[in-house]
């Protein structure tokens, strides 16, 4: 269905490094993916894999002065964001690419009412008068299912629950009618029942506006529910990309396999939970060759020497692993 939709965001070989006093942290080290209109791509990985930095790189919000995009392209509807100036990026952020972050506590300014904060954003995108902007703000709140929006406009963030704050954050994010939304673990700090409400809301907004979403998370349950395609990240690189169902049913990269196996299930027998021994390599001291090699059950010599290229293994399914070289791609 969405296969024919146009590509809105095209990231090619992106490299973003952090220059710290201990060395160069290669947080994003050659990452490529794309987003189609109306679809959701999940970016999955554990802490330190670079997924948050990837999201920040797309909108050029890397921590300063340590972070820098070193190489690569981020094509937003054909325009390369990497080459844009800072003032040009200011027009892109919020209006064409929006971002939702994890912690609702720190996403809103505690000394302004949420009405003020909404209006502040809307003013950047609409040249309307005060009353009209307030009306738009109330509409925005209504669209994210905030009850009694007229009262809520005058409320301060600390008077609202976490779930409601995230809704407001979402309202601010989509106020500029962006083409791409980057959601970085938006529900991690929320209760599960609230999380369900929120994810349903995001899906609804996406259906209405044909938003392309990059959903950064470590939770496979969310991925299964929300994402059309998934990219798995490890130590700064994407190791596997594919349609959600394919990745769950037949993961091809040993890390994807092991990661999924280590998630406890709600049904089935409760046997010993397989875990991955060891830890990911430090991003400032990466080994030559495949970065998962020290922990891989199928490792061989070549893996340790050379980093495997990304190879197709199925329709829209690609993996960076030497093992798949032997099996021909099935089309």
């Amino acid at each position: 269905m969405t296969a024919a939709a146009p590509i809105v965001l095209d990231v090619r070989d992106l490299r973003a490094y952090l220059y710290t006093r201990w060395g160069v942290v290669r947080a994003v080290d050659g990452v490529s993916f794309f987003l189609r209109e109306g679809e959701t791509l999940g970016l999955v990985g554990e802490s330190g894999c670079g997924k948050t930095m990837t999201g920040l790189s797309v909108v050029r919000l890397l921590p300063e002065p340590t972070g820098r995009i070193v190489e690569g392209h981020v094509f937003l509807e054909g325009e390369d964001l990497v080459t844009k100036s800072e003032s040009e990026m200011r027009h892109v952020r919020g209006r064409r690419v929006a971002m939702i972050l994890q912690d609702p506590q720190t996403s809103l300014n505690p000394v302004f009412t949420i009405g003020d904060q909404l209006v502040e954003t809307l003013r950047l995108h609409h040249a309307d008068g005060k009353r009209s902007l307030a009306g738009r703000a109330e509409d925005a709140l209504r669209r994210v299912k905030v009850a009694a929006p007229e009262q809520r406009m005058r409320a301060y963030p600390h008077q609202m629950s976490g779930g409601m704050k995230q809704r407001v954050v979402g309202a601010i994010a989509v106020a500029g009618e962006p083409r791409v939304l980057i959601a970085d673990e938006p529900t991690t700090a929320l209760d599960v029942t609230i999380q369900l409400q929120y994810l349903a809301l995001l899906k609804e907004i996406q259906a209405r506006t044909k938003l392309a979403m990059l959903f950064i998370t470590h939770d496979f349950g969310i991925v299964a529910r929300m994402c059309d395609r998934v990219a798995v990240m490890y130590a700064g690189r994407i190791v596997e990309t594919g349609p959600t169902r394919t990745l769950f049913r037949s993961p091809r990269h040993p890390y994807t396999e092991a990661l999924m196996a280590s998630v406890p299930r709600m049904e089935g027998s409760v046997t010993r939970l397989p875990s991955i021994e060891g830890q990911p390599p430090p991003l400032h001291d990466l080994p030559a060759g495949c970065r998962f090699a020290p922990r891989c059950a199928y490792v061989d010599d070549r893996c340790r020497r050379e980093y495997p290229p990304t190879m197709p293994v199925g329709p829209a399914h690609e993996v960076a692993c030497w093992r798949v070289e032997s099996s021909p791609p099935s089309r």
Partner: protein
Amino acid sequence: MARVEERIDAGFAASTAGDESALRRVRGDLARMPWVSLVIITIMVLGAALAPLIAPHSPTEQSLPDKLRPPAWEAGGSTKHLLGTDVLGRDVLSRLIYGARVSLSVAAVALLAGGGIGLMVGIVSGYLGGRVDSFLMRVVDATLTFPTILIALLLAVSLGQGLQTIAIAITVLIWARFARVVRGEVLAVKARDFVALARVHGCSHLRIMTVHIVPNVLNTFMVLLTLHIGFVIIVEASLSFLGAGIPPPTPSWGQMVADGRSHIASAWWLSVVPGAAIMLVVLAFNLFGDWLRDWLDPRLRQV
């Protein structure tokens, strides 16, 4: 979830412990230290400590034929008195060096006493909370409203001039500032899980305060100490300037500035030299304190 910086720190520490990259790190650290400040501080401390050995003259020896000589680089100056002489013919350089002693000893006593009291009050107040906390903080608030110099003058007048008086006056003035900041830190530390776990282990309140709380507020406390050295030196100088400080003939920088006031137009060096010394030393301590705070703060450790 932990802050990104903390995870990166842990990753670095774990992988570079005892490594050659540790050497690189140390070299990087050394490059960023506030060298100028350290040099100034060292000179002052050494000067004060070795005063009898390095001062060219006695600070109190008068020599009226030599009075009001300008510094060596001016016309009429000589290398016998590198920074000139005052109205009684006493060597300015020697008085400067001995004056450093006064400033440092007052600072040391006042900071130890004031800082010590403030530390204890802050810890007890922050840890025990409740009414004890409310009461102590009201005392702190009251103390902080005292007009600094006025109180010091009052004390000087009632207790008489001398090192003791100044030390007491400054202690009274600064303990409250320490107490307030330390209490804030204690509240933050108290909220961390390892304190609750210490109670689960069965630790007494005393043990928790000494083993868990104090070591974790020491960083802040030390930074506060260094940042207050400048303040204390200025207070002492101000008191001496106003005539309520160390009595003559013991040289004190503030007093030297005061004495030179009436000769400002003709013998500028009498006030400017000790004034410049005060400024440089206070600046050096402040810069050092800033650097220390940044260095000790794990969050700011990148780049």
